[in-house]
């Protein structure tokens, strides 16, 4: 039994031992991982210090030592990566030395994916074997967290959003917002309600300071050189730099950071929001009490809420102050003139004021209440010094207080009263965590460098020195304020200038911001389009600003005036001209890569050679001698001289150690020789052609010469008639046409025989039936023949005779007969006296009928002509 009982004990012991082992192992593992993480963080930090591509890297790379070192370290890194990944069991593809960064990242990502996949598969395998409890995925070790890691608060906020149905969450948010917007409408400007006056005139700002607390006596006549280590600026120079005297300039310059603030101290954790009492300060009594509390504490955090849309200079709407254990929110509107009493703690150099991004807050305090700040710690400046990835307040609280700030109220209308709880909470949170953050920052700054904390203080006091100045109206301010999409002509410029001025005047008078009166884009569209009427003005402004509606007349007046401005051509500025020239490709005097290549030393075409001035002075005595004639051998021109054709053997280039295969080369060369280029063929052809032509010419000449020996055959009228056979048919042709047939001119005409006789005498030799007319006659002759034939036909029809041409006498008698017989007395002349009728279609004095081809036109012409006929009086 005992043995049996002891067995579980032993097992228990064994398991305990195992657990112990595992715990030890995990501890060791955790330590290792932590070390690796730390080293990795260090690596990242170090690598950030290396010269970056695009900045210094190229410069450094031009030094060979750097270059070789980089290459060697790259090789080493590659080898290491290879080794590491191999030891894990998934070797990566290591890129070659000198590969691009993209290639490297690609490879690394691939390797990481492989590792993750391998881990996943292993885990899966263990799960299948039901051994997964052995392998515990270690917890996430916080220390070397990536910068984008979400904190618990952030995660929970995200979870809240995403756990629920997104649609309902969004709808809820929308509803909330709408309700808020309805609540936050400010019915009356607080400036009016609480009778807060502001000086919107052009006059310089005068300080509202009534009582100067914590003033030190200014010793005049003594020049102080402050040479302490904080590197603060010179007394004199700082004093001369500020035009308008800062009331606390001496105090700020003399300010020495209290020793306690420069020492490391315990970080006092903030109390939870719900455990912290919140006091709303809206009466003078409460304010006095606050002043007392603030005077008693060592440090407090401050933030302001500001509104500037509905006020020319801007309006501080809320002051939040947090001490170590209390939160205060000052509603300054009812106690506007009394807030100035806060100057006492604010100007106290022994009390530390913690701001975040105080550059404008300090000025607003000065402007509205005459409160000046001495002894300031700006967390923003500190964050810059510590080189944080972000510099926002949200990041600061997230980092140190682990609280996610909902920044949705940042741009809310803080003039709305009563303040809603959400907004109060938001305002409170702005300062609540600031003191703790300050503690943490201080410790970190001290850790980083002893000087850094002092530097932060000195930079913060530089912010305190700033003096509030009223914005000065710049009549041409729109040129810098607005980006133009188009160039203004004179009219548009006039309109824009005057609208800009009008906007400023109205804004000052009504205590509104210029943007509220007329936003930039509306002003631009108005001056661009220059609308003619009120409707056009309204069309340019959507939504219609209140003051535009109220004072449309003013705007219309400006625009009408602008329309009357003469349009002038505005000369281009030098830069624009340069740009235009460049666009046209005109070369400027500036040298760049391309122009330096294009510009030749002997090319003067781009230089400013003045034609008016004439030639550049040249020593006339040397004229003609400024070209030195060189020997051909000396100058490079010997290249032009045809070199001797080297022999084939010398031209053969062979690899070292190998013998030149002359025969092969010769064979190749022969083959190459055999190939004839087309042009050579052409040349050969041309040569042969020329030869042929030459031969032909010679042949012709020879023939000529041969013929020249024989007596020339000349024909004259005295020559004996050559008996040529006429080649025409006499039956078809008339005598007159025959004469005009252009026959061979050399052919002598034989006058004696008539064609009829010829044909009749020798019919056997020439048979005209064998030939057609076309073959025998020329074209002209053919035509004549045809004409004649037609005429003959006509005659025969009219006169009833076979042929008239052979009988001219009869024709003549036909012509003569009617002339003699006509008796004019008897003839009826009445026909001539009457105007010619329309039916006489043949009458067409201007030959309209023939000119016009179109029938309709012809008809029209006929009508016209008939009209004309109607008007012509034939009587006289």
């Amino acid at each position, binding site marked *: 039994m005992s043995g049996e009982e002891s067995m579980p004990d032993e097992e228990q012991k064994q398991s305990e031992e195992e657990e112990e082992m595992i715990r030890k192992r995990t501890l060791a593992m955790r330590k290792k991982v932590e070390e690796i993480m730390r080293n990795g963080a260090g690596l990242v930090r170090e690598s950030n210090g290396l010269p970056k591509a695009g900045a210094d890297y190229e410069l450094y790379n031009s030094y060979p030592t750097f270059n070789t070192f980089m290459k060697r370290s790259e090789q080493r890194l590659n080898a290491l990566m290879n080794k590491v990944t191999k030891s894990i069991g998934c070797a990566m593809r290591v890129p070659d030395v000198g590969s691009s960064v993209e290639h490297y990242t690609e490879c690394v990502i691939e390797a990481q994916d492989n590792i993750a996949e391998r881990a996943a598969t292993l885990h899966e395998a263990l799960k299948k074997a039901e051994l997964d409890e052995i392998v515990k995925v270690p917890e996430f070790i916080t220390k070397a967290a990536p910068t984008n890691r979400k904190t618990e608060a952030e995660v929970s906020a995200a979870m809240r959003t995403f756990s629920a149905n997104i649609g309902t969450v969004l709808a809820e948010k929308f509803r909330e917002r709408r309700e808020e917007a309805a609540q936050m409408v400010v019915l009356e400007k607080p400036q009016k309600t609480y009778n807060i006056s502001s000086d919107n005139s052009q006059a310089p700002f005068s300080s509202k300071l009534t009582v100067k607390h914590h003033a030190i006596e200014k010793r005049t006549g003594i020049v102080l050189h402050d040479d302490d280590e904080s590197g603060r600026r010179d007394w004199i120079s700082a004093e001369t730099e500020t035009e308008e005297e800062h009331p606390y300039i001496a105090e700020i310059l003399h300010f020495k950071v209290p020793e306690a603030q420069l020492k490391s101290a315990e970080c006092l954790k903030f109390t939870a929001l719900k455990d912290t009492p919140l006091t709303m300060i809206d009466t003078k009594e409460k304010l006095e009490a606050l002043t007392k509390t603030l005077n008693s504490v060592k440090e407090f955090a401050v933030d302001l809420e500001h509104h500037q849309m509905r006020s020319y200079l801007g309006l501080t709407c809320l002051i939040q102050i947090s001490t170590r254990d209390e939160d205060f929110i000052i509603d300054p509107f009812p106690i506007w003139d009394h807030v100035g009493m806060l100057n006492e703690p604010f100007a106290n150099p022994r009390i530390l004021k913690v701001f975040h991004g105080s550059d404008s807050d300090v000025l607003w305090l000065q402007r509205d209440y005459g409160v000046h700040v001495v002894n300031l710690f700006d967390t923003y400046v500190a964050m810059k010094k510590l080189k944080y990835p972000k510099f926002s307040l949200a990041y600061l609280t997230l980092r140190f207080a682990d609280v996610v700030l909902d920044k949705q109220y940042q741009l809310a209308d803080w003039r709305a009263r009563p303040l809603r709880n959400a907004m109060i909470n938001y305002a409170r949170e702005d300062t609540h965590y600031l003191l703790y953050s300050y503690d943490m920052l201080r410790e970190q700054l001290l850790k980083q460098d002893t000087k850094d904390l002092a530097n932060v203080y000195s930079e913060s006091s530089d912010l305190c020195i700033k003096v509030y100045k009223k914005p000065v109206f710049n009549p041409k301010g729109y040129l810098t304020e607005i980006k133009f999409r188009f160039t203004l002509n004179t009219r548009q410029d006039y309109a824009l200038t005057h609208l800009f001025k009008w906007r400023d005047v109205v804004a000052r008078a009504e205590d509104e911001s210029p943007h509220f009166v007329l936003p930039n884009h509306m002003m631009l569209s108005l001056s661009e389009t220059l609308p003619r009427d009120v409707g056009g003005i309204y069309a340019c402004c959507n939504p219609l600003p209140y003051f535009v509606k109220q004072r449309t007349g003013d705007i219309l007046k400006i625009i009408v005036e602008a329309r009357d401005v003469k349009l002038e051509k505005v000369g281009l500025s030098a830069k624009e001209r340069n740009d235009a020239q460049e666009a046209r490709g005109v070369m400027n005097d500036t040298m760049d890569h391309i122009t330096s290549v294009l510009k030749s030393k*002997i*090319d*003067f*075409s781009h230089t400013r*050679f003045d034609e008016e001035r004439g*030639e*550049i002075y040249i020593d006339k005595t040397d*004229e*003609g001698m*400024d*070209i030195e004639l060189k020997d*051909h051998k000396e*100058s*490079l*021109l010997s*290249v*032009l001289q045809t070199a001797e054709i080297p022999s084939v053997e010398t031209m053969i280039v062979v690899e070292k150690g190998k013998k030149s295969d002359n025969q092969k080369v010769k064979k190749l060369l022969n083959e190459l020789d055999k*190939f*004839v*280029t*087309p*042009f*050579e*063929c*052409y040349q*050969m*052809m*041309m040569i*042969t*052609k020329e030869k042929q032509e030459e031969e032909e010419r010679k042949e012709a000449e020879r023939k000529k010469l041969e013929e020249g020996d024989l007596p020339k055959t000349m024909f004259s009228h005295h020559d004996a008639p050559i008996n040529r056979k006429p080649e025409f048919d006499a039956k078809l042709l008339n005598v007159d046409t025959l004469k005009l047939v252009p026959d061979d001119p050399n052919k002598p005409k034989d006058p004696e025989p008539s064609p009829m006789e010829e044909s009749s005498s020798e019919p056997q030799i020439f048979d005209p039936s064998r030939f057609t007319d076309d073959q025998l006659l020329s074209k002209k002759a053919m035509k004549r023949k045809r004409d004649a034939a037609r005429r003959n036909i006509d005659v025969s029809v009219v006169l009833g005779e076979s042929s008239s041409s052979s009988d001219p006498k009869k024709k003549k008698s036909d012509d003569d007969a009617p002339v003699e017989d006509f008796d004019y007395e008897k003839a009826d002349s009445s026909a001539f006296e009457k105007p010619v009728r329309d039916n006489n279609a043949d009458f067409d004095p201007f030959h309209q009928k023939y000119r016009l081809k179109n029938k309709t036109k012809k008809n029209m012409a006929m009508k016209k002509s008939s009209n004309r006929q109607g008007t012509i009086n034939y009587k006289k």
Partner: protein
Amino acid sequence: MLAETLVAPGDKVLDAIGEYRMGKGLYEANRRIFASVAGFVNVYGFRDKSDNLVQVIEVRRSEDQLDNELLPFHGAIVTAKVMAVGLRFAKCDIISIGDKVYKKRFSALLPKKKLRPLEPELSEPFKNFVRPNDYILAKVCEDAEIKDKFVLSIAEDELGVVLCRGRFGEPMQKVDWNTVVSTRTGKTEPRKMAKVPQKCTLPTQSVA
């Protein structure tokens, strides 16, 4: 004195242009005349329309015009490859001008109306004369319509196709001046062959 002087680019040729007219191979800078190419100074004269003697000064490399021209010039005999055949034009690449082969190929056009002498407009299709990938001998001529490219003409007996391949890359042999026959398939195709001795032949093995 001036003529036949060897000059290099940038050498001053004259102090002023004077009565001469600027020819090729010269440029003016600061009113002086410099050589822009290496060669010999040459002066030649011709009579213009109003019968005035014009003296032209130029720098040339040799007497032969072919050697002086750097671009295809009017009247030059060129070897070109037909790249594509359209309805009215054939696109060609000039491979060599005369005997000179340039690194760059000049693109040129062979209009349809310059295919055959004395026939301004042809109804025959282009493929009866040249086809893509044919090598032709052509003459550079001027055309009023086409200004951005060189215009070729094969309207001479000695001009036309010198080398051509069939469908399978096999060389085609000349049958007569208007026909070629494939060495592989025996198919005949119409071409306008140049009347030149067929000395340049393609290698017998087909090229893919």
